[in-house]
Structures are given as C-alpha cells and as structure tokens.
C-alpha cells in the first residue's frame, strides 16, 4: 500500500513542484506574460480551447494524419519486412536502398510532398507513413530473423510449409521486436504530423501552434503543446498495453519502450 502511494504519489509531487517553480520564477525574474504565461493563464487557455470547442478540429486533424500515416507506414513495413526476411532475392534487391534511405531525414521531404499532394491531409499522412516505415521495417526484419534456428529445423524436419513456419514460429518470435518498432514509429508519427502541419496546412495542432505564434498567443501555444503531449503519452500507453496483452510470454513488454533501433531516424 505504501509502495502504491509512492508509485503514484511521487510523480504528483514533481508536478506540483514544477508548477510552483514556474509560477515563482515569473515573479523572481520578472518575465513578461507574452514570453511565458502563468500556469493559470495556460489552464484557462486550455479550458477555453477544450470547452469552447476551438481546438477539437485541430486535434482531429493531427490525429488523422498521425494514425492514418502510422497504420499505412507500419502495414507497408510489415509487408516489406516479411518479404525481405523471407526471400533472399528481395533482400538483395531492396535492402541496400532501404538502409541508405533510412539515414536520410524524412522531414526534408515535407515541402516536396506538399508540392505533390497539396495542403490537405494527404501530404501529412504520406509524410508520417514514410517516417514510420523505417524503424518498423528494421524491427520486423530483425525480429523475423531472431527465430530460434533449432525450432526452424524442427518444423522443417516435419515438412512444415513455409507459411506454417512463418505464422507459427517466425511471426510470434518477432512479436516483441514488432511492438518495439510500433512504439518508436508512434512517437515519430506524432512528430511527422506536426512537422507536416508546420510546413503548410489548413488545420492541425502544428497549424494552431504556428498561428498562435504569429499572434503572440503564448497561452494557446502552451495549450497545444500539452495536448500533443497528452496524445503522445496516451498512444504510447495503448501500444504498451497491447504489447503486454498480446506478447504475454515476453518480459520486456513490462519495461518502458524497448527499442532495437534508435528513435533518431527522423
């Protein structure tokens, strides 16, 4: 019981201290409100945005770009990763290029995508999909290859079909790595959506932040940033929850985001 209190209580302590320091430092250093608003002002901006309903259209746009691109990019990565891991010829054909493209910053493509696909949602979805693809792809390939070779031999010795082996051994063996890939991809998806909206957009939280910046509406900027943080944390928790439930035999799902690749791919 005391442990539970500590687990949930101590982070609250941190929160309270940070807010108090924030409030106090404004007075100590005489920071003007147009640079750093008071916590109360941010709260009322958030209240207004949420209950006044002005922010939802932007939240919805960002979520659409993020989730649409995430699903698209990860699905392609799963398919491509499966083909590369299973077929040596496919690997030789595409792997060097995939690795080369991986080290390229995908956000640099944002202006190009906007020229091609316009200011709407399509350009953001594609940008997010591109960003999500690579960490997921690498994890799928690594995961599928991590299947125990003795198990593969056992199935082969029983004349198992390639598909049977893939579904029963390789895919479950890769499950943990795939979830680690999803976790990284999800964080990057949000980043990609916001960057896309910065470059050119009609709505979205990235758009809202930029518009507020032009109006020196710092409170709204803060409200948008907190909203992005909430989206990120919620989405990560959902993936982690799914990881624990689906890959129940794996202990690493219990720890925080395990990644076999780095998050710096964007």
């Amino acid at each position: 019981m005391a442990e539970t209190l500590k687990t949930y209580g101590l982070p609250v302590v941190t929160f309270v201290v940070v807010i108090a320091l924030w409030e106090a430092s404004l007075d100590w250093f005489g920071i003007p409100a147009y640079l750093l608003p008071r916590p109360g002002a941010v709260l009322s901006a958030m209240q207004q945005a949420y209950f006044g309903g002005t922010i939802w259209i932007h939240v919805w746009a960002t979520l659409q770009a993020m989730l649409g691109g995430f699903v698209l990019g990860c699905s392609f990565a799963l398919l491509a990763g499966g083909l590369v891991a299973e077929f040596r010829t496919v690997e030789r054909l595409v792997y060097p290029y995939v690795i080369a493209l991986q080290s390229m910053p995908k956000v640099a493509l944002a202006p190009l995508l906007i020229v091609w696909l316009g200011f709407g949602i399509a350009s953001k979805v594609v940008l997010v999909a591109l960003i999500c693809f690579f960490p997921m792809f690498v994890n799928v390939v690594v995961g599928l290859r991590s299947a125990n070779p003795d198990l593969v031999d056992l199935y082969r010795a029983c004349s198992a079909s390639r598909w049977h082996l893939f579904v029963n051994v390789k895919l479950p063996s890769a499950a943990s790595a795939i979830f680690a890939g999803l976790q990284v991809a999800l964080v990057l998806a949000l980043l990609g959506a916001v960057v896309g909206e910065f470059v050119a957009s009609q709505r979205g939280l990235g758009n809202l932040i930029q518009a507020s910046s032009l109006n020196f509406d710092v409170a709204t900027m803060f409200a948008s940033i907190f909203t992005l943080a909430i989206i990120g944390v919620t989405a990560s928790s959902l993936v982690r929850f799914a990881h624990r439930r689906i890959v129940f035999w794996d202990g690493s799902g219990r720890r925080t985001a395990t990644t076999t690749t780095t998050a710096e791919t964007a």
Partner: protein
Amino acid sequence: MSVTPLRGTAAPAEAAARRDAPARLEIRDLSVVYASRQGNVKALDRLSLSVGDGEFVAVLGPSGCGKSTLLKIVSGLLRPSGGQVVLGGRPVVGPRPDVGIVFQQPTLLPWKTVLDNVLVPIRALRRPVAEYQDKAMDLLRLTGLERFAGHYPNELSGGMQQRVAVARGLIHDPALLLMDEPFAALDAMTRERMTAELQAIWMKTGKSVVFITHSIPEAVFLADRVVVLSERPGRLLETIEIDLPRPRRAQTLGEPRFAALCNRLRAFFSVDGHAQ
C-alpha cells in the same frame, strides 16, 4: 526415479539381439564438406554406422566432430556430399515423419501451452490434432507432466521443459529418435535424474535412439553401443558394446564394470580433450 524392470533384467544377449535386428538406420560412407571463407571444411569423413531396430546408440566425440551435422543429415535437413543414409529401408532424401528430434535446448514455443507444444509436430505434419490429444496426454504422463499440460513453458523448470521436448519428439511415433546432447544444458542433479528417466521411456517405447553426447558416463549408462568419433573431420574411431544389464540404476554407476567401460572410452580422448 524408481525404474521397475519393464523387460525383466535385460541380459546382454538382448542388447545383442537389438544390435543384430534389421537395421533401422544405416549410414554408409557418409562425407560432408562445407564451403566456408577459409575454403572447404570437411565435417564428416566416410562415416559408416548402423542402428538396429530398438537399439540405443550413443555417439561420443569432441566438440566440432560433426555430430550435429550428422543429425541434420539423418533428419533430412542437409544433403551429404558423399555416401548414403537409409532409414527404415528407404534412402533419406528429405525430411521424414519417422524421425523425432530433441535438441540441446528445449526450444519450446513460449506462446503455446505444454500440451500444444507437444502437438507441434502433428500440426506441422498436417495430421488431425484431435486424434493425437490422448497420445499427447499419455506422453505427458510418461514424462511426469500431466498436471502441467495447460501451463506455459516459462512456468516450468529447465528439466521439465526438456521433458516436454522429449514428449514432443515422440508424439508422431517416429521409429528413430535423434537426441543432440539433450541434457547438456541441465544442472548435474537434474541431468542424472533425466538420464534414468530417458532409459525408462526408451524401455517402454522401444524406439531406436541416436544419442549425441560429450559425457562418457552418460553414454555408458544409456547406450547399447557407444560410437566414438574423431575430431573434425569426424571419422569412426571405435564401437564399444555396453553389456551392462538393464535397467541400469544409480548403483550401476559405482560398479567396476561401469568404471572399466568409461576408462576404455576415456582412453580415446587425450588429456587436453582431443580425440587421437
């Protein structure tokens, strides 16, 4: 584990009968050459060996004598560079359902229950699972695991996991069971118990067994015949009949005859562990 005499106290004559039974497995002039970066590596060199129906043969050799290669060839996963393997009267040209395999590690599927793990070969062989449920439970009973059928492998100890692997190796009723150092990863006490249990299982099921091991006492305790391989490339150095009566028990380990056989085998490996 107490072993009740299942076939009576088997006389050496019975072992001889198994040896002279129509060969279950016949390996003739088997050679394997691998292509590697350092050029061609010879793993096996004109190895000939036969295993009678129901016979227990231990293959003893230093690390890297090509024992695992031998296992892959017999199970049809690897084609030899020369020579032939005949199993149950038919040459081995690919994977065969009449072979069961047990590896050094249990290699179970952690996402499947013990029962489903035992049924893995049945599903892979596309046989009707329903017909094998009872057999799977029988095998779990035989290996003392019937209470754990619904458990997941990571809830079991290493020795129990390896017992699941033995049950899995036997589920499709193969005539030949290939065991690749199955107890090497277990602690000494578990290993000793598992050795006695394997003898009991073998005596009940009457399978032909090829048992690959590094351990001289284990080979002598279990086998009807011990085959000694040389260092790479693996050649046949010697075949020694083990004429100890069955079932062999813990006391067997202390008998002078047992010690003498172990010493005879030990002579093939010089002090630094290399076969001469």
